[in-house]
Every structure is written in structure tokens, then in C-alpha cells.
């Protein structure tokens, strides 16, 4: 490569290019870091929202089941099913969106257990209702001292007298309900409990975001130092040398000698000055 202008332009372009790379890198890395942090916060917020919805659905289901079992009102069946479906939907959404999957297994287990329990209860209730209807028909046709009446129809008509004390709600549902709410709470606090490793991850991300920029800056500093050094030895020093030597020649007639290494246009300048001095010397003689 020859020509001072060309050398300086290329050097300047290299530095500008590196500056641009450093800038772009810091922009991209910080953007990524900000996105990562935003993702963690959004996941935490979404976790709480989903947990709240699940708790609402579980509460709704609980109320509907209490009404269904205490009042024996079959009108609450659809409410139970709707609450269960809502719970399942939210659970599926949570499964789909969760960043931290460590608490999802226990939540899935509790939800499935609840569904099986509620479905079983509602099915049994529906079957019993059908049997009661059939018994009512039989009651009208059979005499009340008939053995078939005593064994099958009478318990259907007065289930509270014949059935064993119904511990389904307290023994089965309540335990499952508690497990479900505990799992939902664990899911809700999962983002908080995994905050420490996530903070560590964020710290690593921040380190990774800064490192390329720091390295680019270090390389740029090295290049700027080299640029300064080369400019000094190839441009500044020769100009100073030519100036000093020319001054000495003009003032004291000391021979024009430049010790510094001259290149490109500066070499031409030096040669032209020498030519000029020679011409002046020849003209004088």
C-alpha cells in the first residue's frame, strides 16, 4: 500500500469499523440482556396470574361441590364441571407457558387426581339419581313388605337412613383439595424460590454481555496506540526532521540531511527539497 492519504484512510476506516462493531455488540448484547431480564419478570408475573386463576377455579369447584353434596341439588353438577374445566384449562396454559417446570409435576398430579375424584363423584351421583327414579317407579308397583322392596327400593327412597355416613367430602375431596391448593401455591412461589439461580444466570448474562464489548474496546485501544505510534514515526517525525534540517540549512548552511525514515509523499518531499537545494547550489556556482 502506498500513499499517505490511503494509509490514513484505511486506518481510520479500521478504527471506525471497530467502533461500529463495539457499538453494535453492546447494543445487541444489552438488548439480549434486557430481553432476558424482561422474560424472567414476565414469567414471574404470569405465574402469579395463572396461580390466582387456578386457586379461583379450585375455590369455585369447592363451593359448588359443597352445595351439591349438602343440598343434593343436581343443578350444581354443571357448575362443578365448569369449575373443573376451568381448572384444567389454566393448568394446561401453565404447562405450556412455564419457564420453570420443576413444580409442574406435582401440580399436574393434583389436578388429575381432583378431576378423577370429581368426575367419579358426579358420575356416581348421576347414577344414584337414575336409580332413585327407577325405585320410585317400582315403589308404586310392588307391595312394601316384598323382599325386593326391602332390599333395593327402600334404601333408594331413604338413602340418608341406609347409607353409611358419607365421608367422601372430608376424607377424599378435602385432602385432594388441600393437595391441589398446596401445589398451586408451590407453583406460584416457584419463580420466587428459583430467583437465586436466576439472579446468578442474570449475572452470567451480564458478564457475557459486557465481555465482547470490553474485548472490542481493548483491541480498539491497541489499534489506536499503534495508529499513534505509526503516525509518529512515519508522519510526524519525518516532517519535524525535514523542517529542522531545512531550517538548519537555511540558517547555518548545514547540509540538508533527514535521519528519520521517510515514506510516500514525505519521501517525495524530501527528495524534491534535496533537488531544489542542488539546483540552487548549481545556479550559484
Amino acid at each position, binding site marked *: *500500500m502506498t500513499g499517505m492519504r490511503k*494509509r490514513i484512510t*484505511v*486506518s481510520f476506516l*479500521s478504527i471506525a*469499523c*471497530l467502533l461500529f*462493531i463495539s457499538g453494535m*455488540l453492546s447494543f445487541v448484547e444489552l438488548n439480549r440482556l434486557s430481553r432476558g431480564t424482561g422474560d424472567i419478570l414476565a414469567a414471574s408475573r404470569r405465574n402469579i396470574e395463572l396461580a390466582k386463576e387456578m386457586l379461583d377455579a379450585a375455590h369455585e369447584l369447592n363451593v359448588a361441590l359443597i352445595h351439591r353434596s349438602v343440598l343434593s341439588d343436581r343443578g350444581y353438577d354443571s357448575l362443578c364441571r365448569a369449575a373443573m374445566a376451568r381448572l384444567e384449562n389454566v393448568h394446561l396454559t401453565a404447562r405450556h407457558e412455564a419457564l420453570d417446570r420443576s413444580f409442574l409435576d406435582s401440580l399436574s398430579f393434583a389436578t388429575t387426581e381432583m378431576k378423577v375424584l370429581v368426575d367419579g363423584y358426579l358420575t356416581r351421583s348421576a347414577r344414584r339419581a337414575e336409580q332413585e327414579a327407577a325405585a320410585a317407579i317400582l315403589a308404586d308397583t310392588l307391595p312394601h313388605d316384598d323382599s325386593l322392596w326391602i332390599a333395593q327400593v327402600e334404601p333408594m327412597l331413604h338413602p340418608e337412613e341406609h347409607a353409611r355416613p358419607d365421608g367422601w367430602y372430608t376424607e377424599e375431596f378435602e385432602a385432594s383439595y388441600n393437595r391441589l391448593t398446596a401445589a398451586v401455591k408451590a407453583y406460584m412461589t416457584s419463580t420466587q424460590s428459583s430467583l437465586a439461580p436466576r439472579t446468578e444466570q442474570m449475572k*452470567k448474562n451480564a*458478564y*457475557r454481555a459486557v*465481555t*465482547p464489548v470490553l*474485548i*472490542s474496546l481493548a*483491541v480498539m485501544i*491497541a*489499534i489506536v496506540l*499503534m*495508529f499513534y*505510534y*505509526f503516525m509518529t*514515526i*512515519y508522519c510526524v517525525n519525518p516532517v519535524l526532521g525535514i523542517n529542522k534540517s531545512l531550517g538548519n540549512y537555511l540558517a547555518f548552511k548545514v547540509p540538508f540531511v533527514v535521519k528519520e525514515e521517510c*515514506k510516500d509523499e514525505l519521501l517525495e518531499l524530501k527528495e524534491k527539497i534535496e533537488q531544489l537545494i542542488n539546483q540552487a547550489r548549481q545556479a550559484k556556482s
Partner: protein
Amino acid sequence: MRFDVVLRYVGVVMLFIASFMLISVGVSYYNGMDSAFYPLLLSALLTALLGAFPQIFVSKKGQLSMKEGFAVVVGSWLVACVVGTFPYLIWGGEFSPINAWFESVSGFTTTGATVLEDIESLPRGLQFWRFSSTWIGGMGVVMFALVILPSMGRSRMMLSNVEMSTLARDNFRYRTQVIVQILMVVYLGLTALSLLSLKLAGMNWFDALCHAMSAAATSGFSTKNLSIAFYNNPLIEFILIVTMATSGIHFGLIYATVTGKHNNLFRSEVTRHYLAIILGASLLIAISLFAAGNYHTLLASFRHAIFQVTSLITTSGFATADTNLWTPFAIIILIFCSIICSCSGSTSGGVKVNRLLLAIKMLKAKLQQQRHPNAVVRVRLDGMVQDNEMLYAVMVFIVAYLMLILLGALIGTLFGLDMTTAFTGAVSCMGNVGPGFGEVGSMNNFASMPVVMKWVDSLLMLFGRLEIFGLLQLFMIKWWK
């Protein structure tokens, strides 16, 4: 000294290193653009820019002076180690700044010691860069660049003279220009042969290539946490033993043997002694291990003994067994092997068998001189009379080498390491071996070392690789004027 000229040639070496980073980028891309792709690409770009910048201003110059040659070689090694950290630092993971520096120095100096707890979790692109750095280092950072860049002309001779030790040059018996080409041919040939053999023995292509590069460079880097013990395959071990042992022989002699020249390795006194040490040490260790009940059969003892002896004497550092569990007798022999190492003119580090033989011959000559004060006693090596200057240099080197080991061990104990770890760590780093004993045993790594010791050990690796005096000159301010 013309610093601009030094910068130009160091820049050329950096351009060469950047090209290897780009190859690693290709490997990363081929493996589904793994997480090392962008770190490697950015590192290649920055290194290339840094290397290209001096070329803008400094045009090709004539002959380099001796000082300039030294400055180019030492500067190239240091700068290579610095830019070698870029991919590690940008990738992150286990690489803190000191870990990245240690890994880079360990790679370029072919030490093969690592600070990584889980090597297998590294993406393939970064793995390949690790092995590339060690492969470049095996040949010599500057020597490699000299082969690739024919435009260097007369400067090539000066640089190769500086990078290669005097002992290695003497044994070559070729013109300087040819030496560089011979080295390359032998090095490439060894790597290619090893690659094919390892592939045929059951490794996958990537592992075979990495281990072939590592074995030819006598580095000891492995793609597996358990090193070669992972494969538990006698054939792979045999191939690596042959590759390592061959890489420990003078490359000029290998070339001469292959091309049917008279001065081949069968006539070399140094090579004979080198092979005898390997066999003798292996047999002694095998007997010791068998007698102590470490292995059930003598054959199994010999299998592990010869692998470890070859691995340590060639300064490779691969492992098939936990040598910390071996008998004290075996450990002492292995430490002895780690200090002597193999022949000059090879890719290995350490004192070298040549110097050991010369030291023994000088001792014999001294005794003879005492018995016959008027006798003219000459020291010969491979039939060549060695001048006093050479013998003096050998003795100074051995003394300086041992002093640096002691200094390293002293600093190690000062920072809380036990004596075995401190001493063998210093021995292994100074000889570019890799594993030592104690906390830095064959199945351990340098991760648990204090930060100061990682700096000290990486400095020892550089001292060992540059044969002490090159790097020492850096600390002499007067030398730079």
C-alpha cells in the same frame, strides 16, 4: 530495535491465528451453529483486524536483527496466548479471565493442563479451537506462519533460528529454509496417520481429529473428562503411544528415515537412549505396580505403565489411569520422565534427552580430566564434537530450568498447596507436560488451584516453551534499546 518491523511480523502471526479461528467457525457452523459460533467469529474478526493493522503502515523489510527476531518470536507467543483467550472469554461458561488465560497458554504451549471441570459440555466449535491452538503451538506459532507465508524471505531464516533451539538445529543437518518445510511435512503426516488410525480403532471423526492433533503436538488435551481412560480401548492406547513416541523424536530424523537418508533415527544415539528410557521406565513401573497389586496381571500393569510413561516423557499428558494411586517408586520414575522429556527438534518440551546425555558425558569427561590432567577430553553427541559454548549453554539451561521449578514449587507452598502438588505442578507446567500428582493428578485438573498459582503456572509454561532465555530477555530493559 525497529518496533514497527516487529509489529508487522507479529501481525502476520496473528492473521495466521485468525485463519484457524475461522476454521473453528466452520466447525461450529457444521455442527448446527453451536453456541461457539458468534464468539469464534467475533474473535477471528478482532484478531484479523489487530494483525492486519500494522501491514497498512509497515512494508516488507530486509533482514531482521537477532534482537528483532527474538522480539518477534516472544511477542508472537504472548500475543497468540492473549488473542487465544478471546473465544473462551466471549463464550463464557467456566471461563473467567484467569481460566481463559490459563487454558489459552496451556493450549499454545502444548501443556494440555486444563482448568475445566466439564470438558464435554463445551460446544464443538470451541473444542476445535482448543485443539487448533495446541496444534499451532506444537509446531511453533512462528514456524507455522513461516511455512504459510513465503513472502518472508530472509526473515524466515532469522525467525526459525530464534524459535528453534540450537540443539535442534544442529541435529537437522539441512539448510535452514528446508528445515521449516520438513517440520511441516512430518507434522502433517503424523497428524494424518494418527487421525486415520484412531478412526479405524473406533473413535468418531471429530474425536479422532482432535486426539490426533493433540497427540502430534504432544499436548494431551482430550475431548473427554476422563481423557483416554474413557475409551478403555487397548488399540486406541497403542495408536496414541506410537504417535506420542514418534512426536517426541527429532523431526529431521523422522524425515531422514522416511526418505531413506543415511543419518536416520536408527543411528541416532539420542533416539536410542530416548526409546530405552521409555522401555526401561515402563518395565520398572509395571513390575512395581504388579508387585504392589495395583493390577491383576503383569500385562495390564505394563499396558498402563507404558501409556503413562510415554504420555509424560513426551510431555503429552493423556491418562488411562489415576497415577496418584500408583506406588511411590512408580511416581518418582514418572516425575523423572516429566523432567527429562523427549528429544530436541520434536514438539515436546522439558530438559530433553540431548541435554541429559550431554550433562552425563560432561560429568564423565570431568572425571576423566581429573584422572588425566593433560588429556584433551572431548564430548561427542551423535558422533559430533560439542564445543564448549554449547556445553556451557546446556549446563546453564539445566540449572535455570531446575531453579524455576523450585521457585514455582516454593510459591505454590506459599499459597497453601501441599508439597507434592506444588512441586509436581511446577514440574509439569515447566515441562509442558500437563498432569502432575496430588491435586493436579492425571484424573484431576488445575481448577482448584489458587488464582495466583494459575498465573505462576501459566508463566512457567511459557518459560518452558520458549526455553527460558527468550522470555527472560523480556525482563531486561537494557536489551530493548
